[in-house]
């Protein structure tokens, strides 16, 4: 069975289970009334749930270097929560937000997680962005039995009872994209470049194995840039010397902008060089400038330009709440899913108890997601599609490819 066949098969199985479960949970859906669910019954673990309200936490960096990226997630989560409240809340209870600032500092994430769980007794937390912040907070969630919805696409290699991962893990984002670009561009040689930390390194490890073992291609260079470095002259020259068919990039943060600007200035624009990146969303484009990016490709599960009714409504609502200039990137959309998934988990469980909600969520299908259909896998990640977007000069992307629904595989065999 080839990879693709396997994937298709899995999709069918998933859809089937999802459908079965959906029948059994009709009672939990719709507008619930609080009196149908007495507090004593739905909250046996002393969470901050009253007859009228339930508290949840939002934990992202509002300050510091990561505020650039995390602001979108905060906005999306607030939008989702506002919409849920408008529909009557969760089990008839309005959601109250306690927002904490992780301040781009990983220990602070751990501290604030503790505060949210131990002091505020929130029923769920939507938060974290970088892997480092999640890694710092994770032991707290496991010890205090909290519930975290984590929005960022990330390296995988993790699966916790207390976390749902609403972004893609590495194989979901990498494999299909490489398959597509290798076929589309008849590419044989690849140059891998990323920032120097775990997500790019793990991603490049998976990419290299896939290129060498499944695509029959060759990796002609692998390069890591110190976080925050903005000088790319030498790296670009190395690339020019190797003349790869494809540059496969995972550069993040301030370096990202410098990378694209200098690449263009050195004559390596999209007319001469194909590049597929896994680290550029609409959020980053603001800083990079569309003209520097035009013609390059990104592999993401979501682009703002996706054409489906869910997304059109989502984009409209988002702009209504946060202003017409707001842009929506992959992570922002994934963050938007968090509160909706939590609502579903609680309502399927008929309880705010973390233990019950956690068991109830796998198998759930969210059909109203802006990215289209998603489904929660027993491994706490989402089934999702991969899309390739080709950037336009105006900072939006045209989706040029859409994969099948991909099963999440945080511990991919053969890629470790």
């Amino acid at each position, binding site marked *: 069975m080839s990879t693709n066949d396997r994937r298709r098969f899995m999709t069918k199985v998933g859809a089937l289970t999802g459908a079965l479960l959906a029948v059994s949970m009709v009672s939990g859906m719709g507008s619930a009334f609080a009196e149908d669910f007495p507090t004593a019954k739905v909250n046996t673990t002393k969470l901050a749930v009253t007859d009228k309200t339930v508290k949840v936490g939002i934990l992202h960096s509002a300050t510091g270097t990561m505020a650039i990226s995390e602001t979108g997630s905060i906005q999306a989560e607030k939008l989702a929560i506002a919409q849920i409240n408008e529909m009557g809340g969760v089990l008839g209870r309005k959601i109250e937000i306690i927002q904490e600032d992780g301040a781009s500092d990983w220990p602070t994430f751990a501290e604030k997680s503790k505060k949210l769980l131990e002091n505020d007794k929130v029923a769920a937390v939507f938060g974290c962005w970088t892997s480092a912040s999640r890694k710092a907070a994770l032991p707290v969630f496991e010890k205090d039995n909290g519930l975290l919805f984590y929005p960022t696409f990330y390296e995988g*290699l993790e699966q916790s009872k207390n976390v749902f991962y609403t972004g893609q893990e590495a194989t979901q984002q990498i494999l299909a994209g490489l398959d597509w670009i290798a076929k589309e561009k008849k590419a044989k040689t690849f140059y891998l470049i990323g920032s120097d*930390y775990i997500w790019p390194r793990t991603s490049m490890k998976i990419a290299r194995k896939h290129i060498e073992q499944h695509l029959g291609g060759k990796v002609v260079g692998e390069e890591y840039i110190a976080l925050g470095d903005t000088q790319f002259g030498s790296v670009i020259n190395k690339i020019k010397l190797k003349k790869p068919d494809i540059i496969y990039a995972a550069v993040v943060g301030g370096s990202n902008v410098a990378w694209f600007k200098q690449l263009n200035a050195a004559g390596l624009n999209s007319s001469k060089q194909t590049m597929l990146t896994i680290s550029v969303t609409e959020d980053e484009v603001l800083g990079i400038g569309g003209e520097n990016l035009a013609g390059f490709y990104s592999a993401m599960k979501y682009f703002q330009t996706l054409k489906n009714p869910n997304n059109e409504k989502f984009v409209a609502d988002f702009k209504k709440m946060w202003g017409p200039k707001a842009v929506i990137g992959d992570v922002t959309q994934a963050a938007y899913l968090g509160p909706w998934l939590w609502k579903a988990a609680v309502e399927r469980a008929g309880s705010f108890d973390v233990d019950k909600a956690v068991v109830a969520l796998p198998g759930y299908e969210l059909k109203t997601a802006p990215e289209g259909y998603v489904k929660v896998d027993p491994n706490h990640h989402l089934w999702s599609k991969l899309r390739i977007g080709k950037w336009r000069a105006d900072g939006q992307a045209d989706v040029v490819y859409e994969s099948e629904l991909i099963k999440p595989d945080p511990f991919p065999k053969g890629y*470790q």
Partner: protein
Amino acid sequence: MKTLSDKLLGGKQGVLGLALLALLIMVILPLGLDIFRLNLVGKYLTYAFVALSLVLLWGNGGILSLGQGMFFGLGGYCMAMFLKLEASDPISTKIQTTPGIPDFMDWNQLTAIPWFWEPFKSLPLTILAILIVPTIFAYIIGFAMFKRRVGGVYFAIITQAIALILSILIVGQQGFTGGVNGITDLKTMLGWDIRTDSAKYILYYVNAILLFGCIFLSRYILTSKFGMLLLAMRDKEERVRFSGYDVSDFKIFTFCVAAMISAIGGAMFTLQVGFMSPSFVGIVPSIEMVIFAAVGGRMSLIGAVYGTLLVNYGKTVFSETYPELWLFLMGGLFIAVVMFFPDGLAGIYQKHARKIPFLKRWVAEEKQKQTDAHASHGKASTTLGAEA
């Protein structure tokens, strides 16, 4: 004649200060706070070690190190390495390609524990490493710089650069160090679960006791002739040199002691918080820790502890309610302390608390005794034409 206890306690005023601080840390805070808040205080108190080291180094020695975070980090990493090895037993890591090694090593295709991790299988060796590794590191830096009389602003900038290099190295060598994520998911120490509430209480007190130990150690140093020389060097380095002292030796020693104290703080941080990350090694935390010392009063050991608690308390409160305002406040604090309160809280205390009559009398009595001692020693001498 000063006895040892006098030296450590620092006279009546010192006893009063220590007693108040001990009351606060050992009794009031544990009784008044739930375990979550107390654990936070415990974490802050680990920073107090660094602030303490800066009082020695910067306040008294005039040597501003903008790289104390690296010693804090080194101590913390040593402890984290031990705990990580213990947490990575083959059973709990059976999902890995190579079970029995830390998870991040497995992700980075390492198949065996690197040699420099080996000593951290043993707790005694780990404790030794916590004390020795940062100290040796400080000795090398100190030797190279102070023997060549690098000081002042240069020293500050070079320590900063070294801190930066170390953090880039730690981030870059993630197979050996855990990279930017740091070393996380630490669980037990010799089988004892460090994440339980009771463990937190115990660690809090261990931390507090160690902190007082370091205060005593620092106070001993400062009240000895060494301390006087430190002050003397800060103000008139040439004079000290021409009084027959090898100034660089004294500076190296102080730098080493400061490194060791910071490292103890780092190790206690790892134990109480449950992880260590390179974000402590870099520039920003190193400078922030200077402000803890500055707010408390750069000359005052006890002030450093209060300063640390106060700034961190402020940070927690403000970042919970007005995260936007926090940076303004922190920045303002830097400026205000430097411009208006160069002696920090301790300075304000000296200025105002001394006017409280009962304290005034108490201190005066002591001073009088000292003067009497001098006067009784020799014959009264003829006074001379001094206009002062």
